[in-house]
Structures are given as C-alpha cells and as structure tokens.
C-alpha cells in the first residue's frame, strides 16, 4: 500500500491544509479525538517552525509531509531543505514555561518546540543529503 504524501509551499496559509490532511488520515486510522488533536497540534507547530525558521516564509520553497502507519501508530515525516536544525534536540533543551512568572515577564512566543515534545510519542530528527527530516510518531492508544 502506498503512503500519503503532501507537498505545500512554505507559506503559513497552507498549514491549515496540511492539518486537514493529518486529521483525515487520523480518521482513516480510527484514531481517537484526543490522539488526533495531539497529532494535529504537533504537526502544525513543526510546520510553523519549518516555514518560518527553516524556509524564511519563502513560498517558492516546498515543505513535504509523508503520512503512514506503523503498527498501532501514525507516523508523519516532515521534510524541508532549510539549514540543518535539530528540532528534537532543541525541544528537549527548551525550558518549560515557569507559571510562577509574573505577567510582565511571561514569554509570548517560544512555546512550539516544547509542545512538539509533549504531544509526540516518538520524535526523531535526521539530516540527510541537504534535507531536514523530522519523524513524528503518535501511538493510537
């Protein structure tokens, strides 16, 4: 059986299109709403980062997703041709938001990497031949 593959321009307007593919694929796999929501959030955060930071919002560049199944899990592989950046390692290093912070010092950005880590069951990064490849796995239960 073939995988499902999607390629979009590196433009934030297309992230919702990619999210709808992830949701549809999750439905085809009969994933629960909770797992579907987690997968959607993780993929959206990863795509937001790839489009903004790896591709500099340049819509002449493409970002690709390959969605498939592992036993009991959905896998989404995201590929871009931006500079090497290990989102998984950076996410592990990202400090958790300290809720004891006073309003004045609350961060109003920088939540993405920690969110990918928290919503994804297995995340792997690989640099292969000029591509960043981020492999996100979501367990069905």
């Amino acid at each position, binding site marked *: 059986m073939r995988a499902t593959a999607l390629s979009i321009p590196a433009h*934030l307007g297309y992230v919702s299109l990619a999210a709808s593919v992830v949701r549809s694929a999750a439905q085809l796999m009969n994933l629960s709403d909770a797992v579907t929501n987690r997968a959607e959030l993780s993929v959206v955060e990863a795509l937001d980062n790839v489009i903004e930071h790896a591709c500099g919002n340049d819509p002449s560049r493409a970002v690709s997703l390959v969605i498939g199944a592992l036993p009991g899990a959905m896998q989404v592989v995201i590929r871009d041709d931006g500079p090497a950046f290990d989102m998984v390692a950076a996410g592990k290093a990202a400090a958790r938001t300290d809720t004891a912070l006073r309003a004045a010092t609350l961060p109003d950005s920088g939540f*993405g990497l920690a969110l990918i880590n928290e919503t994804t069951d297995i995340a792997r990064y690989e640099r292969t031949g000029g591509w960043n490849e981020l492999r996100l796995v979501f367990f069905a239960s």
Partner: protein
Amino acid sequence: MPSFAIPVARPTVHLQTAAHGPLLVVRPAHDRLNAHLAGAFRTALLDLFESGHERLVVDLSGVAFMDSSALGALVAVHKRCVAENGLFLLCDLSPAVASLFDLTRMSSVFRIYPTVTDAVATYAPNHP
C-alpha cells in the same frame, strides 16, 4: 507539468464584539487561530485595548483549533492589560484549545470561564 500555486490572501481578522457594561466581549469568527492569523489577531485585540476597551472578554466558542502563535498573541494582550490595570478574561475553550493551555501551563495564567455568561455574571452582573 507546470507548477501553479495558489496566491493566499493577506489574513484579515474578523472579531464580533458586544458591550456588557464595562466589559467588551470579543468573539473571533475563525475556527482556526493559527500562526497565519496570529499577528493580525494580536494587533486587532491591542487596537481595541488602545481605543479604550480595557476590560476584554475573549469568547473562544468558535475556535476549534489554536496553535502556540495564537496563544502568544493572547499572552501579549494579557500582559498589556495587566500592566495597565485592565481586565482580560477568556471563555468557552474547546477541548483542543483547553489542552493547548494545559500543555503550556497557561491555564493557570489566564482567568478562564466556561461561558460568556459566567464571565459577564462575575464582572458585570448588571449587564447580562
């Protein structure tokens, strides 16, 4: 095969507003609040604040999905309100949105009400 692409219109934020005494209830008319809209969303809310609406209730009942950029926009407006002794309430979070607030520990930062009615009853009981 020639490669065509879809020109994406600049994002426009649609906010429905309703005054309840000193409170302004603001309802984003978007089922997805994401990085594409976040900048415009933040600006629109701050514009309301600057134009004198310093007690804002953001009604998220229409929002099925939110990402961390849109959350960041809410944090920015919250900080501004707190800094200037205004009020910034949120209400009616969908399960996915509530989960975003929990995962980022922002549930304990914002004042979150189940419904608009609850928020209004608490802060503007004479203006239901």
